[in-house]
């Protein structure tokens, strides 16, 4: 049996108020006023790679063995690097085997589904389990409709054989050069064509073709579908497509438009992860996405769905959202508004690539050292253990820290240095089982932390070297929050 063995998602904590955007732009674009709800907003230190890693951790928390993964496919149209394997960064952060096949995919929002299909094909060919990641953090022009419609997020699936929680039954694809929107290489914002033409000539014609193929291959009648997942930013279009495909209206999955917005490449997988949280064994899921044609897949939920749960899940991420009403913060985080940085913002953040390579395990995977003699854990790892009075050389073994519990030993929040989201919080973090790091904090407000606050670790952008266009990553601490403490 081939299908999905684990799933997860990620939605950034910040949710930009559409009303706040409308009010800020009312002088210029009064038509944007009155839009309800929020859209998700990546923090300044998040991009498609970090969100993909967050989704993968949400997913792999439930997976039995990361080392069993043979491939990592990262689908996104907003990857930070045009040349440097973005999936390779994620593989390092997730401490996956160096022998893994890692690939970046993109070019269309349905690249997430393409990655899923590739993973399934690998499983069918006996090539092992694939981690499928999709993430987008799209740029839009201020006072545009897209600014309100899109959101930031990521999704993750493990596909393979064996104990699948959703069995793959069939797929359909239409690959044609139907251009509803485009973005030339080097550009940051999409150009869109007229909505009615896109709806009628594109989506309404191409999606049903792919769906029909998938249903036929699966041997499933459209009316039997229990969950129809079809992301679209156009209001009520998903219902119309369902009707055209012969799918019951009740099967329509929540497209998260009111809270998250359309996250682009990951959105179908994000909705799938959300659906799997409540899907019952035996139910049929139809998954479709539009873009340079269309793609569709059919799955049947199995009994394993009851046990294979993500660490936090889309519902968990949804519940921990915090409304953001600062429109200029949104613009600054997206790089649209260049705020004054002062002299401290002139710091050169050049990365020594040789050093980064030498310490890749520590930097990307947050792997410290544990002394076999004393049991002492330290970061960064080194040749000598931290054992005052003893010379213990080469006694350390790798000791991953990212998934361990942690607490604040000391902290501060300063307004002196330039920071994209002041005040700059950092402090000493003590890990359960040993180990201490002085590290940046993220995703928090003044008053959220004190000595003893329980923290968790997240993979984030450490610095951006604007002069050379390099992003470097490291781990940060954020207050451990359950859904109960949301907002």
């Amino acid at each position, binding site marked *: 049996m081939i299908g999905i063995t684990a799933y997860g998602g990620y939605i950034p904590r910040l949710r930009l108020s559409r009303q706040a955007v409308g009010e800020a732009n009312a002088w210029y674009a009064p038509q944007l006023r009155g839009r309800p709800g929020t859209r998700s907003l990546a923090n300044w230190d998040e991009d498609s790679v970090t969100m993909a890693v967050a989704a993968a951790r949400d997913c792999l928390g439930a997976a039995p063995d990361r080392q069993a993964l043979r491939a990592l496919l990262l689908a996104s149209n907003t990857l930070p690097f045009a040349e440097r394997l973005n999936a390779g960064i994620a593989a390092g952060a997730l401490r996956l085997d160096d022998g893994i096949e890692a690939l970046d995919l993109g070019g269309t929002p349905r690249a997430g589904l393409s990655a899923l299909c590739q993973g399934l094909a690998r499983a069918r060919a006996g090539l092992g389990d694939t981690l499928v990641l999709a993430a987008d953090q799209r740029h839009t022009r201020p006072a545009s409709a897209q600014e309100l419609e899109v959101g930031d997020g990521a999704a993750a699936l493990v596909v393979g054989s064996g104990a699948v929680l959703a069995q793959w039954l069939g797929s359909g694809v239409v690959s044609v050069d139907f251009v509803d929107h485009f973005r030339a290489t080097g550009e940051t914002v999409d150009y869109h064509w007229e909505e009615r033409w896109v709806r009628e000539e594109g989506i309404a014609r191409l999606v049903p073709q792919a769906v029909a193929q998938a249903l036929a291959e699966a041997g499933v009648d459209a009316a039997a579908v229990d969950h129809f997942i079809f992301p679209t930013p156009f209001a009520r279009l998903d219902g119309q497509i369902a009707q055209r495909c012969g799918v019951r209206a009740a099967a329509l999955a929540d497209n998260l438009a009111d809270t998250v917005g359309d996250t682009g490449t990951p959105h179908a997988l994000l909705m799938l992860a959300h659906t799997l949280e409540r899907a019952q064994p035996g139910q049929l899921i139809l998954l479709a996405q539009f873009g340079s044609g269309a793609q569709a897949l059919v799955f049947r939920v199995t009994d394993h769905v009851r046990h294979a749960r993500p660490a936090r899940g889309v519902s968990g991420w949804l519940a921990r959202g915090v409304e953001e009403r600062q429109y200029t913060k949104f613009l600054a985080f997206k790089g649209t508004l260049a705020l004054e940085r002062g002299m401290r913002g002139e*710091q050169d953040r050049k990365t020594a690539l040789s050093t980064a390579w030498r310490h890749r395990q520590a*930097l990307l995977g947050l792997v410290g050292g544990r002394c076999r003699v004393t049991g*002492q854990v330290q970061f960064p790892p080194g040749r000598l253990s931290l054992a005052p009075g003893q010379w213990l050389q080469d006694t350390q073994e790798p000791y991953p820290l990212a998934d361990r519990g942690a607490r604040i*030993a000391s*902290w501060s929040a300063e307004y002196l*240095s330039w920071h994209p989201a002041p*005040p700059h919080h*950092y402090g000493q973090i003590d890990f359960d089982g040993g180990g201490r790091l002085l*590290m940046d904090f993220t995703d928090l407000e003044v008053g959220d932390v004190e000595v003893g606050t329980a923290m968790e670790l997240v993979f984030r952008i450490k*610095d951006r070297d604007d002069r050379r266009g390099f992003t470097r990553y490291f781990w940060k601490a954020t207050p451990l929050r359950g859904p109960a403490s949301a907002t």
Partner: protein
Amino acid sequence: MATGIKNKVVILGMGCSEFGERWDASPEDLMVEACAEALADAGIEAGQLDAAWFSTHMDDVGTGRGGTPMGIALRLPDIGVTRVENFCAGGSEAVRGAVYAVASGACDIAIALGVEKLKDTGYAGLPMATVGTYIPQWYPNAVAPANFAQLATAYAHRHRIEPALLKRALAHVSVKSHANGALNPKAHLRKPITEAQCLNAPIIAAPLGLFDCCGVSDGAAAVIVTTPDIARGLGKRDLVAFKALQVVTSNGWEMQGNDWDGSYLHTTRVAARRAYAEAGIERPREALSLTEVHDCFSITELVTLEDLGLSEPGQGVRDVLDGAFDADGRVPCQIDGGLKCFGHPIGASGIRMLYEIYLQLLGRAGQRQLAQPSLGLTHNLGGQPSQNVCSVSIVGLWDA
């Protein structure tokens, strides 16, 4: 068995430039200002100097690397100039080099000089220093106020001190130093302040506000050292001798282990214990007449007073508020205004601390002169609480 430095080396002369926003002066000018005073005080010519130690931290703000900036600025007589750097404890490190050189018998007269020209950087605080290629890839882009503010959050947690009470004690530390600095003609900040001003000041790094931070200044200070015999031979009567010179450098224990609770300075405790033993001091609270400690931030001073054994752990707040370290208190601290008001030209600070103790012991401190001091301590700290270099020096009237 080491016998220590006690009474082996004395101060022949000292000098200190005016600290502050010295828009008028280059690093060379500041060095000349401090050295000229030291030479005049010592009653010798520059040609009589046998060796020199030079302390400066930011080589890219006008002082340059190596020993040549000092050799050239002071037209030294073809002697060896050793540049030392140990963060903000560099000045004390330079003194240690010069004193050890004299104590060893390798030279008769040595000079230690520290200088820093910070106001030409364009920064209101310390410029960000580069720390190699690895650390910036994981370590926060941390600034000094936040590193020391963590001492405050951990200290309050460790001793269960209400944040408002700690803020008041920290305010008292700064009010006291401003009151002292107002009487010092060479100090950078010479205006008294009130507790309310401190408490209401903008936050720089929680919980530290503007008045919890020391002045970032231009300045230079110099000390000329020799043996007691040579000093007497040069006609010196009242001699100030080194009783102890201790430097302790972190080995990573605080930052990498989990045992340190962040509420104190481990290196200060070790350095103080060794310095008291070297100087033969059993009860520092009774023995010491005054201290100049590294008050880069108000919390540093408060915690240091505990680490030096002048307050019990956790009692610094009470003692500070009781005025134990005020000018008229049990052991006056920063009678010259401290880093807080005299200012903090990094490489010069350790020597500036020594300068004040020297003036006080010789009764030359003017309006801020204490009644008959006999023994003083300087505490000079480089780095940050979790990873630092600490120097504790004790000087007193020569009595051997």
